[in-house]
């Protein structure tokens, strides 16, 4: 295998993993605050169509990316209002949000199908970007790829090294105790949900502006659900999220290459690989009883109603 093929495989793994990493990082923060938002898929789709439409209309990728984040956050705001202010059931609301997002995105995107936009520009550092293998991988990616790493490290630092992060984890662990001490549980959850929505929006924008720089209906193809599973897979720890996103992205890409290499395995079996891998890893994690229990936010999915 020559290095050109290797580089192209590695590049495609990065492309497949980035949207998962972005969306899962956002959802991890949301879930750490105790809010279970199953609407990631819907928020991603709205982000992808808004990002595409704004970029197509204005010609500015930057505006498009910002709009995508706002679009995802707006969806999250709907979710938060329903679940936090009106105390609707989080699971049902999240599912509804996904269905709503699919329809809304299809409607908004109807006029944009088939129009291409320029792909997000990659970084170019003369000298470094031309290095074999390392050049395109480390110094030739687009801004959202770098941002996905930055966001992950930023999130880790925020959650485990700042007081704000401690408060967020505390709210997810026991909203009653946090309320008793005097932290604004509802406002903190709103903020966490909006961050999660914005990150999902960015994940969507990555799909429609970089992965395949065009808009197609239902173009997230279940990536929102995979991002949700990744958060459990990572047992709510950001470090494992990075591992999980790239493992999953890697297996997704591997299946294409196994198919093109003509190995005698039925294509259907190969397509199952990513999902099979998820199940196997989830089983392995669950055998360690302490781990899930210690890391899962105890108030995940539970409505908070302040007494008095």
């Amino acid at each position: 295998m020559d290095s050109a093929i290797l580089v192209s495989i590695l590049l495609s793994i990065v492309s497949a993993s980035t949207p998962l990493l972005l969306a899962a990082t956002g959802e991890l923060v949301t879930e750490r605050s105790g809010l279970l938002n199953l609407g990631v898929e819907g928020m991603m789709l709205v982000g992808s169509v808004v990002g595409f439409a704004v970029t197509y209309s204005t010609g500015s990728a930057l505006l498009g990316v910002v709009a995508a984040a706002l679009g995802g956050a707006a969806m999250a705001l709907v979710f938060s209002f329903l679940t936090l202010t009106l105390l609707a059931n989080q699971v049902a609301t999240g599912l509804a949000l996904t269905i709503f997002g699919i329809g809304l995105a299809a409607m908004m995107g109807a006029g944009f199908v088939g129009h291409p936009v320029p792909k997000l520009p990659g970084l170019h550092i003369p000298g470094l970007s031309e290095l074999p293998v390392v050049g395109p991988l480390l110094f030739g990616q687009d801004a959202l790829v770098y941002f996905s790493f930055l966001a992950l490290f930023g999130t880790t630092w925020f959650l485990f090294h700042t007081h704000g992060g401690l408060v967020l984890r505390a709210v997810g662990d026991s909203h009653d105790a946090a309320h008793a001490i005097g932290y604004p549980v509802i406002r903190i959850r709103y903020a966490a949900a909006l961050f999660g929505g914005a990150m999902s929006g960015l994940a969507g924008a990555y799909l429609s502006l970089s992965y395949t720089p065009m808009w197609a209906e239902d173009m997230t193809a279940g990536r929102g659900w995979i991002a949700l599973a990744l958060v459990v897979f990572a047992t709510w720890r950001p470090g494992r999220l990075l591992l999980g996103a790239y493992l999953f992205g890697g297996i997704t890409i591997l299946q294409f290459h196994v198919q093109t290499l003509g190995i005698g395995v039925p294509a259907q079996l190969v397509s199952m690989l990513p999902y099979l891998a998820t199940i196997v890893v989830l089983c392995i994690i669950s055998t360690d009883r302490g781990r899930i229990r210690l890391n899962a936010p105890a108030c995940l999915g539970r409505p908070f109603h302040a007494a008095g």
Partner: protein
Amino acid sequence: MGGAGGVGSAESPVVRSDSNADQPLLSLRGIGKTFPGCIANEAIDLDLWPGEIHALLGENGAGKSTLVKIIYGVLKPDAGEIRWQGRPVALANPAQARALGIGMVFQHFSLFEALTVTENIALGLTDPSQRRDLRHRIVAIADAYGLPLDPDRVVHDLSVGERQRIEIVRCLLQDPRLLIMDEPTSVLTPQEAERLFATLRRLAAEGCAILYISHKLDEIRALCERATILRQGRVVATCDPRIEDSRYLAELMIGAELAAPSHGRRPDFDAATRLVVAHLTRASDQQFGTDLHDITFDVRAGEILGIGGIAGNGQSELMAVLSGEVLADRSERITLDGQPVGRVGPDGRRACGACFVPEERNDHGAVREMTLAENAFLSGHRRRNLARRGIIDRLRTLLFAGEVVSDFDVRTSGPKAEARSLSGGNLQKFIVGREILQRPGVLVVAQPTWGVDAGAAADIHQALLNLADTGAAIVIISQDLDELMMLSDRIAVIAGGRLSPPRPVGEVSVAEIGLLMGGVHGSRVAHAS
């Protein structure tokens, strides 16, 4: 008033410039609070002076918690006025209360299970400058006040007693002007409690006011200068507890005469042995749990064995092994009426005539979201035949739950009420009653009266004595030494996962037991003064 004059020691007491002995630190006038369906507080007046230790007494549901939550800014009063040093204040949230210098040691709901001790304490400190170098300050305060605490452990793995130490340390770190303490000593050894009292007296001498909630009347009489007694949301009396006797105070609280629990029997040392535990050794499943070493004891028919000890010394592990939630290594380690049951689970042990009351009533002793009838079914279906061929017999279940409610005076709307709608004391009465009415041959109870008011505790104690009179063998695992001394025929102490040999209660002094609790076996040595 007390405070200001008593400050004269060499250890440079903190003299607060604006503390003024001419006016109360905090005064409440006509405080009222109504919840849907109940008046929690009505026209409550209360003055707290700098340097005084003031007791707040009352049954569960008397409105104590509501009142302290109002003072701490968690709840807003519907009526009345709060004055802080003479100026009216509106406490919208606990952060404002803390900014004034009000600290509170909660009894429940204020620890984060997944976080470490240090993180938990950091969450209670609003001012970022207080959070600097927190770890060392925790260790320093904990040492100074004799509250051993490892700042890096996760709360999840800590016992009730250790958790309460976190609360106390959290408050002390904030250098409070008014400290509210909700039952702080229930999990301390007598020596540790004495040490805490010394701490509180020192704080009071420094000018801090202390509002002290406790059900232990002797303790209040030893510590407090004034007591305000609440009943059904109103102040029924304010008195000096040092000159009133405990019985009178208790009767003011419950508004009725309090019957002392009475034995109807003498322990019979020839009676048949019903429960035998022999050389039981079991490593804990918990990451920071206590391993049990060579536990040996037996209990005869009609006998009550008390097991004392400081929280976190193996009580929860012992309870789990006795109830069958955790199995012993060999079947003959535990025998019930001669039958080896060490490898049998809880249901099998119930079939052999044993019943259990775990320490934690919420989500262990009862399912909070289920009705009382359903909770009664869950533990009693076997011994009370509440199911027929796998189908729940709803009538019998309702009757059984109703029997528990009426026999044990559980205050609830009926057997169809959800368990979570009951106050702690009422739910505890229900759980104890549910097990006792299954007429067990062996009953193992952990912390039967934890967080339960005096009236309910007396009822539970009497019920346990009555059960023993019917020939049941009872094991009580408790941190409340007074309770053990009153009920037990023999008493043993668990420390570091080892059980001291049981001794007849008349032959052993409280001081001796306190020393055993402090760890004859070497671990968790209490800071001897």
